[in-house]
């Protein structure tokens, strides 16, 4: 038995014209928790797909358990004990937990008839491996993200896995759930299973992994023990740039109060939420996933109807019936999920930027004024330095950070007085995150009122002038971000 469970050596892979991986190497010891980090598009996913046999490398080889492969098929990968848990978990939402778990063994055994009792035994056995307690007859589609993930892990374990690859497993999890996941990962480690944990979140890398590997634009940058890594080094390895995080200092003076929320409530989501927001302020709202923070955001933007309380913009009460009402009152909203709520991916960058203000770019009979349209697009592409050769290109050609800038541009183009951002830097690389924070601080200092809703504590502490902490649908604390630390905030949240 060799020292390493998996060795990927000098792997290269090119897609039409793009070198996705350039002679990268990765090695994992048996029973180790290894973290693979890097910005979006650095080649992490490509390497995973090569290891699991979905893609074939152009050069290099893979050694697993001392056996050398120049190419692996997906079936070989599974047979050798390599299991990948993708972000979408690849499970069937319309089937029950039991069916999802037992499906593969039933198929593998070539059974054509369904035997519920046998399936139940198989499923129970799978769940018992990580002591996961869930009703077997529930539909997987009705489970929470964390529960789905557990089902996926249980299923992976059924194949006698030696290496489990988790692709950004914490993206949609709450803090509590991340905790639970980490415990499971440690339990798996005890059973001698190696974990390759793919992430770009610094704190997770520190918390869980023993060794790490960082890629940048398809190249191997560094591997080492996590204990030798710190914040600054991590950001540097990831981006090749050095950052000085600058805390927000409000500079806009004499800001009138633009937004007042009085006893706002949505039955079953949150209640009795009141706050005031003036020009030049950045208000942070944080809390766990189920704290009501997202519902609050939706209510502020007219996407959910409030069942009590009032929203006043510049002293005037606004009946929030639809997003249009909010926009006309001067509120912009950068949504939580860029892909399903923020962007028309197949459409052009230009269309995406102007769509919300498009009625302002028309003449008589709502005929579009294409000269003003192009001017507007050009201005915003420049103002937010969106990296594109041609704004007529589809939005899907942009990286996550640039896509988020397009969403920002869309709302800034509406010239709002209040900009609400729900998770402004989720799925955005460190470089862009830094830039987005700078943009938000600048906007506030130019007189905009900004609300950042986020569970990224360093983000809210660093960028906000005020902070609300929500728990179970109520505001539980309003600490001053300048004199609070993450642990205090956490203790209020939990």
């Amino acid at each position, binding site marked *: 038995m060799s020292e390493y469970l998996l060795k990927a050596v000098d792997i290269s892979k090119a897609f039409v014209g793009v070198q996705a991986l350039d002679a990268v190497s990765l090695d994992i010891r048996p029973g180790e928790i290894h973290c693979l980090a890097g910005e979006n598009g650095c080649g992490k996913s490509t390497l995973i797909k090569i290891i699991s046999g979905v893609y*074939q490398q152009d050069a290099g080889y893979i050694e697993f358990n001392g056996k050398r492969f120049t190419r692996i098929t997906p079936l070989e990968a599974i047979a050798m004990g390599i299991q990948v848990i993708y972000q979408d978990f690849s499970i069937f939402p319309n089937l029950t937990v039991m069916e999802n778990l037992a499906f593969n063994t039933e198929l593998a055994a070539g059974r054509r008839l369904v035997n519920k009792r046998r399936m139940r035994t198989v499923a129970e056995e799978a769940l018992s491996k990580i002591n996961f307690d869930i009703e077997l007859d529930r539909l997987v589609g009705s489970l929470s993200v964390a529960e789905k993930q557990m089902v996926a892990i249980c299923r992976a374990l059924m194949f006698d896995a030696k290496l489990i690859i988790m692709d950004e497993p914490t993206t949609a999890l709450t803090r509590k759930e991340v905790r639970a996941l980490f415990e499971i990962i440690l339990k798996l480690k005890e059973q001698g299973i190696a974990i390759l944990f793919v992430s770009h979140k610094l704190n997770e890398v520190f918390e869980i992994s023993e060794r790490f590997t960082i890629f940048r634009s398809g190249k191997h940058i560094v591997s080492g023990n996590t204990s030798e890594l710190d914040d600054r080094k991590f950001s540097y390895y990831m981006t090749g740039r050095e950052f000085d995080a600058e805390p927000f200092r409000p500079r806009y003076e004499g800001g009138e109060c633009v937004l007042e929320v009085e006893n706002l409530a949505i039955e079953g989501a949150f209640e009795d939420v009141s706050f005031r927001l003036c020009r030049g302020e950045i208000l942070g709202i944080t809390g766990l996933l189920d704290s009501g923070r997202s519902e609050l955001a939706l209510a502020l933007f007219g*996407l959910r109807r409030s069942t009590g309380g009032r929203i006043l913009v510049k002293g005037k009460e606004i009946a929030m019936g*639809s*997003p*249009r009402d*909010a*926009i006309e009152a001067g509120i912009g*909203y950068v*949504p939580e999920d860029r892909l*399903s*709520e*923020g*962007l*028309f*991916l*197949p*459409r052009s960058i230009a*269309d995406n930027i102007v*769509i*919300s203000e*498009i*009625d302002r*770019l*028309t003449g008589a*009979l*709502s*005929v*579009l004024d294409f000269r003003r349209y192009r001017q507007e697009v050009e201005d915003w592409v420049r103002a937010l330095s969106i990296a594109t050769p041609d704004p007529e290109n589809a939005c899907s050609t942009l990286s996550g950070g640039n896509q988020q800038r397009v969403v920002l541009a*869309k709302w800034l183009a*509406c010239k709002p007085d209040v900009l609400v951002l729900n998770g402004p830097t989720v799925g955005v690389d460190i470089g862009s995150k830094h830039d987005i924070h700078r943009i938000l601080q600048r906007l506030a200092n130019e007189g905009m009122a900004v609300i950042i809703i986020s569970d990224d504590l360093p983000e809210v502490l660093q960028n906000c002038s005020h902070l609300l902490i929500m728990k179970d649908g109520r505001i539980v604390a309003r600490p001053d971000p300048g004199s609070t630390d993450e642990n205090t905030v956490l203790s209020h949240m939990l």
Partner: protein
Amino acid sequence: MNALLKFYRRDRHISRLVIMLAGWLIFMAITCFDKFFSIRNFPTIASVIPEYGLMSLGAMVCMITGGIDLSGVGIANLTSITMALFMKSLPDETGYVTPWMVPLVLLMAILCGLCAGAVNGTLISKVKIPPILATLGINQLLTGIAMVITNGPAVQNIPPVYSSMINNKLLKVVPGKRGTVSGLIPVQLLIFVAVVLLIWFLMARTSYGKKLYMIGTNENVARYSGLKVDRMLIKTYAMSGACAALGGMIMLANYSSARADYGSQYTLQCILIVVLGGVSPTGGRGKISGVMLAIVLLSLLEAGINRFPQISSYYITMIWGAVLLLVMVLNYFAENPIRKRR
């Protein structure tokens, strides 16, 4: 050559339609030039095109939103029947009807279409019925009402002034049979072209067009972007209804009668034309130029096949189906080039 290639690449789908159209015209020129390329043949084709052409335009805008409109024929027939009955009630004792009633009747028909379409749009946007079911239901309902009103047979003997006005051909240069003079440009075609230009303008030049494509791309994002999605859908289905109603009025002129089951093959034919024209059935993609080409291609195919006495007209449906599948298959291979497998 390079310019040609560039033109081909600008929109491959449309280029392929152009090539197929050219190919068919050349084939017809070789096999029966005299019969097909006669000066009398084209006005005849052009007077039938608007019937389903107008309905196809409506189907197109709805499909661009990501929906579908199957109620065109129902709207067309009920409108033409009510308008036919209305016109029959007009003549005084002397049997005279003023020609001015024709534009008025057309206007009323458009209003009927708008209303029926708005009901479709409301069912889809407010009551959240899937478009395919809502419009199919409305189609059945309207066809049913039309049957009840007429008891089945066609409404005939409408004032002849209506047919003679709409079914007229302008630019009278061609000597017709037995010394009568027939024209080159049918009035139906003019109405159709006017509607085409109007819809092209709406889609390409106004904010309505941009929003239409955005809603079709992703309705949820459109909602989050502050577009009034419900209102847009109602407007769009209303527009489709108006197109269908006009199509019905042209059928009324062409047949000089109205019946509850005229043109029932048009429902699916329109959907085929729209898809053939390059509109994505999932919404957000498609151009009016493609749909126009598809309409012309299919009608020339039909007219051409009719020139061969030995081929029964029953083959037309089969050939249409084959053309549609051929284009879809070509599209598939154009978008997913066959790669060498290692």
